[in-house]
């Protein structure tokens, strides 16, 4: 009976398995691709908006449209509104376009660093993680340019990317 009771109450704390092996610094650096809003973990390198335009037209425009507004995939620049369910024009807007083309990355995401993070890990959709850090800076810059947030001659790097104030920053309910 006592044996039965014990077998029902075995928890990990009482019976630790502890089979993890220590990670090396090098292993962590290779795997850690998270970029934070303050720029933490952004790599060295830089990319120009002009170079970004070339890359964008070559590798992104097929799905996102030439100006980042026409789709068919998720809209990257501008918006036609749609914030509140009480918005009187909501129905008209939804009827006009696909739901993914109402809002956009540029108008919805509160931090520019997220664009770098997402493009580097997940884009281009069929061939993710195929761009160099410099190329990701360039494409990030071009997406910001399409949203009128940087100039045509600008260079993007780890110092100025976290400084860019996104229109959605004030609209976002931030984590406590």
């Amino acid at each position, binding site marked *: 009976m006592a044996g039965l009771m014990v077998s029902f109450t*075995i*928890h*990990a*704390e009482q*019976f*630790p*398995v*502890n*089979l*993890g*092996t*220590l*990670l090396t610094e090098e*292993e*962590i650096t290779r*795997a*850690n*691709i*998270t*970029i*934070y*809003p303050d720029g933490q973990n952004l790599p060295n390198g830089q990319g120009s908006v002009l170079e970004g335009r070339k890359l964008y037209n070559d590798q992104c425009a*097929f*799905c996102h449209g030439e100006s980042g507004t026409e*789709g*068919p*995939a*998720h809209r990257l620049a501008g918006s036609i509104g*749609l*914030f*509140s*369910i*009480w918005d009187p024009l909501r*129905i008209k807007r*939804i*009827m006009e376009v*696909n*739901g*993914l083309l109402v*809002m956009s*990355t540029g108008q*919805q*995401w*509160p*931090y520019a*660093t*997220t664009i770098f*993070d*997402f493009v580097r*890990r*997940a884009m281009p*959709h069929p061939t*993710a*993680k195929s761009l160099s850090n410099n190329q990701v800076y360039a494409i990030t810059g071009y997406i910001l340019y399409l949203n009128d947030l940087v100039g045509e001659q600008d260079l993007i790097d780890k110092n100025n990317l976290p400084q860019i104030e996104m229109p*959605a920053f004030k*609209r*976002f*309910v931030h*984590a406590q």
Partner: protein
Amino acid sequence: MKRMQTAYIAGGGLVERRSLLLGGISFLAASSINQAVSASEGNKIIGDDFPAWSRTLGGGDSAYGQPSRYEHKVGRKLQLPAAPENSGTTGWLTPVQDMRGSITPNGLHFGSHHFGVPDIDPEKHELLIHGMVDRPLKFSVENLLRYSMISSIRFLECSGNTAINGLAPFSGDESCQDLYGLVSCAQWVGIRVADLLGEAGLKNGSAWVIAEGADSGSHSRSIPLAKLMDDSIIAFYQNGERLRAEQGYPMRLLLPGWEGNTNVKYLHRLEVTDRPAYTGHESGLYAEHLTNDKMEGFSFTMDVKSVITHPSAGQLLEEKGFMKFLVWHGQVTARYRKWKFRQMKEKPGRLRNCIFPLVTKHLPIFPFPGNGMENPQSS
């Protein structure tokens, strides 16, 4: 009242003593006539009175069993093809209207994929835990399978479930599967996240964990540490077998009651931090538009929802039969408690019919009598 008793006998259930006696008398009366035909009875082959499947030897079985071929119409339905206009997202909808019971069979569990279904070799897959920990660790799948695991019967729901109506100008005339098919329920078995974080040792000030998958988009979400230390598991088994590839093989996060997107599939990295990363999905696609024109990225729980699964679009309520509905909730709210209390007080029979006991964060199915049914439990 009389009709009800007859139905019970016909149904092969309870047989009254009186009806047995009456049946005995009529048998005695008929036996003398039957003597005349006893000669032909000797030649009778009973097979003539049975269907083909009762006369021929059945077929073989297989290594992995399949549903009856007569149930071939029950299947998931593709919500969105993986086309650019859907941002590469595909959704496979559970046929909630065809199911009865709380557990969704693995082949019918809904799927929602932003980056396709990766083909991960478990021998080459590792889980990394690093960041604000005393000992950054990595684990092979083989080693993790040796850990103590717990069972968790939980529903999982895509936060886009029923969004069709939310994004449409008018409510759609769609089937239950089309509107509500992004919710399923399974018995998930896995390691408590708290156990593995404890092995790595949390540093003071740690408050968030960035969970990342091994799919082509390295899907990532910022998860409050408190949730991971509470009831979250890293699931390896789904209804008794290893996770299906489309459910995150070889392992996934399972955060009971939280929106599907945070239950990171193909889990390969947990980065402990003091703040969220504002990943792509929490910044945009999965941020909620509030009525005050604000957007909330860190909204996690799925609230109370319910739907009548039978009769639903494309079905009729039979003259005699049961209505069935689903109720589920990701957090115990005052509203839900009130509803549950009222049900128990006013309609105890309804809850007796419930297939599973009411437990938080799974998917109970309630059958309850339809209009035409004479049912002893209907009031």
